[in-house]
């Protein structure tokens, strides 16, 4: 009897997770959360892009590894100005 009660309690505890897993779609474009639901693709893609752009801000003086239409969102003058001057500025004549 005790074993049956324990099994019933365990089944009740796991029921919500099983239900969630059943509801999750077969394919998630950005993977799954620990609960088995799909990761929000907007959050995931933007986070990767930010990591790439900000982490490698010195890859290029002005070209970002994003599409040109994303420049307005990705470009940050606080990261590039002085660096660009530092190594490539010219003083003439």
């Amino acid at each position, binding site marked *: 009897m005790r074993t049956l009660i324990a099994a019933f309690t365990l089944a009740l505890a796991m029921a919500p997770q099983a239900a969630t897993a059943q509801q999750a779609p077969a394919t998630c474009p950005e993977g799954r959360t620990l609960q088995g639901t799909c990761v929000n693709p907007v959050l995931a893609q933007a986070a990767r892009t930010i990591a790439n752009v900000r982490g490698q801000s010195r890859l290029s003086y002005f070209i970002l590894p994003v*599409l040109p239409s994303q420049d307005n969102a990705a470009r940050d003058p606080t990261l590039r100005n002085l660096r660009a001057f530092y190594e490539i500025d010219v003083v003439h004549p």
Partner: protein
Amino acid sequence: MVKRYVTALGIAAITLPTWAVDLAAQPVGTAVQVSSGWALVFDTEARYTSWSGPRGFPNSYAPGTPARGSLFHMPMAMALTGLVNPDLKLELLARTGFVEARQNAGGGLVGSVRTMTDTVVSGTVTWLGTPGIQPFFALNANLPTGSAYLNGTSAFARMDPDLVEVPTFGEGFNLGATLGANVPIGENSMATFSISHTHRGGFTRDPTDIFGGPDTRIQPGASTSGTAQLAHLMGALLLRAAATYTYTSATRIDGGLAVIQGDSFALTGTAAYTWSPEHQTTFTAAYSHTRSNANFILALNQFQREAFNSNSNALRLRLDHSWRVTQDWTLGVYGTWFNRDANAYIPTAFQFIPAKTKWGLGGSARYQLAPNAAITGRFEHFWVSQSSRPDIDFGGIIPGTAIPALSFTGWTVSLGGNITF
């Protein structure tokens, strides 16, 4: 000249995309690619900027007054995104462009350049097979297809990066890698941690000194950084914050150790609110602080931290609002404010970057040509107020090197688009 620009704008108009993953939030009306199939995107934009002011650049050249300049820039890129298998995502991107810049100021400060820009190629793989964590690895390269070396007066085409988006036209071969992971916390929150390292190759450029010396060989220092992010979606409100710490190694000039740029700390925050399916407002703030540099002192044969921090703090605020007028049309307005709080001194070039405030106001219109193609036009007007600077003091004042307060105005217009296959 005008005819060439019109042609370029026309090409841009018929070849456009919309696949953008906005770093702040998805603009109203922008579709998100969630298909497990492959998507090929071609994206380009033609941008033209014109500015005028009381002095040319560099501002220390007193006879260079009055001044005006222009920049035509046409970046273009292709991106391929898809799932190699259900657990592995691949994102590839290649981007290059064309630029034409000209400055026309008094005293002979006149120059122009027309060249390809450098080319950036990027590849990112993301492992999707482990619930609760999605690690990714990105490898990027800057290919030196531009022009780092500018002959004669064409060097005068280098302009203030606060006035034009392309302040220089080439550098060396750079290679960067980022290793990170997205850690979803439920469906609506995400933490992301990443580390990056960028190796920067050497390049030869025209002389950087004020005495007409020989060509200069620059060997920029490598940089290593760590970034932490947190994003949270709370109903109609998206909040996002990111912090980046960057360490840079020594830069060599003509083979000799020159300087270690101070470590920098950058913060950015975004709040985006979707009022209705048609209206969305986004506010972004970005701040950076750089510690003092260490200059190589030949007599001591060692680096020495500068006595005062010659780097300045920079802050930018931006407010955007987009309005989806119809199924096909989306209009946008935005305002930006940028401030550099103190004069920054660049020892290798005997150059000061002055304290500055820049305002910008702009608008955009986007038209969805087809489910897989859109065009976007933008217009912006900007105003720059630059602080005065006293005479340079290198243990003794150099008369005549002071720069008065200056004001610049300018505008930028662009037309771009993308198409997805």
